[in-house]
């Protein structure tokens, strides 16, 4: 065994052991922090989603998730990968109000992700909330900062689809004002809603026959 003068060349076993111990301790630390923060993180996400759903469906106080699984729409708590979901909103008495449907598509800079409320009975969009976007600050970001634009997605007819027109020229119930200087971003929002709507309209059950709120579904948290 080399000692003293040659202490700089330890055996391979010692190298492997050092790394293994370091890895082990690190693994334990990471599992610890993951387990202890997981409940808070999931609760945060659920709360965020709930708030968004309640915002796009006015008058809603309870929700449940519907998953498109095996070519039918079923109420389910879990969501597998590659599955799409919509959220049914119910008022205090458990009466069905409408769906909150998430959609995404290309904006001016990057993907815009949004959620919109939709009532199949009257074919109306009830509300719209942008969840993620990287539109130009000061121009494109008005799609969620401009209260007039966001507000125009209330009781908006989507039959057959929404049309964005130049500011001040709306005449039909399915037309909205595009934002001056941010035509591309506003049209992107409208396009995403139209596309998501036409994707889902075939899958949703006929108006009036929505599944009732499951008692155990609670408030979805």
């Amino acid at each position, binding site marked *: 065994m080399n000692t003293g003068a040659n202490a700089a060349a330890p055996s391979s076993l010692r190298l492997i052991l050092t790394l293994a111990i370091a890895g082990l301790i*690190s693994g334990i630390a990471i599992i610890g*922090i993951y387990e202890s923060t997981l409940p808070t993180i999931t609760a*945060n996400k659920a709360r*965020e989603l709930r708030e968004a759903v309640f915002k796009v469906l006015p008058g809603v106080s309870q929700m449940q998730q519907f998953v498109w699984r095996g070519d039918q729409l079923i109420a389910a708590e879990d969501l597998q990968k590659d599955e799409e979901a919509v959220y049914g909103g119910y008022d205090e008495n458990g009466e069905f109000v409408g769906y909150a449907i998430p959609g995404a598509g290309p904006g001016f800079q990057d993907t815009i992700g949004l959620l919109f409320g939709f009532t199949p009975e009257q074919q109306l969009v009830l509300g719209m909330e942008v969840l993620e976007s990287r539109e130009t600050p000061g121009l494109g970001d008005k799609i969620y900062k401009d209260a007039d634009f966001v507000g125009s997605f209330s009781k908006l007819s989507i039959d057959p689809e929404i049309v964005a027109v130049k500011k001040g020229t709306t005449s039909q119930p399915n037309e909205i004002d595009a934002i001056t200087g941010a035509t591309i971003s506003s049209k992107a929002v409208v396009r995403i809603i139209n596309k998501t709507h036409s994707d889902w309209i075939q899958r949703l059950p006929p108006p009036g026959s929505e599944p009732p709120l499951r008692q155990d579904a609670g408030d979805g948290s």
Partner: protein
Amino acid sequence: MKKSDSYEEFIKGIWRDNPVFVQVLGMCPMLAVTNSAINAVAMGMATFFVLVGSSFLVSSFRNWIPKQVRISCFIIIIATFVTVADYTLLALVPKVHKELGAFIPLIVANCMILGRQEAFSSRYPVRLAVMDAIGMAGGFLLALFSLGAIREILGDGALFGIKLFGENFEPWVIMILPPGGFLTLGVILLFFNWFKFKKDEFLAEVAEAERGGG
């Protein structure tokens, strides 16, 4: 004497060897997440936590870690602290975490952190290593904050989300876009170099005068 040692290690990171303005390290988070003061400070705090924690551990174990595997060990230690910071931010301030996005995990790749372990913590006792880490991380935090503050004030007319100039302020949109990061950093570096240049010039003049007088 010992006290002034610690002080020396601390102050060099804040000013003389500032990791950003003098060493020009850690540019990736510096440019990417400084579009508002709050993001910059969150990033700075996360980096602060990782650097001080790693320096403490690396310095404590410096006699047990074999030279051949030291870099791997440093990375394991740093990565653990980064993961802890990542989950903590996600649980406590999800909004800020969303803004910082991929840049929290990327603290692992911040060359300043590994650089301090290799150059300092693995050679010096714990007290000095921690002082050095606090100084360097503090300097980094300071630099991030000053960049974030300038960009938010000009780009949004606000600091920490509080409007400073009233409703009619015309925001400089470019400042919160990526080019604004490069512009602001460039101007600050320019100022630092100009300051250093003037100081050297002044010192040279003083030396000249002394030689002439003596």
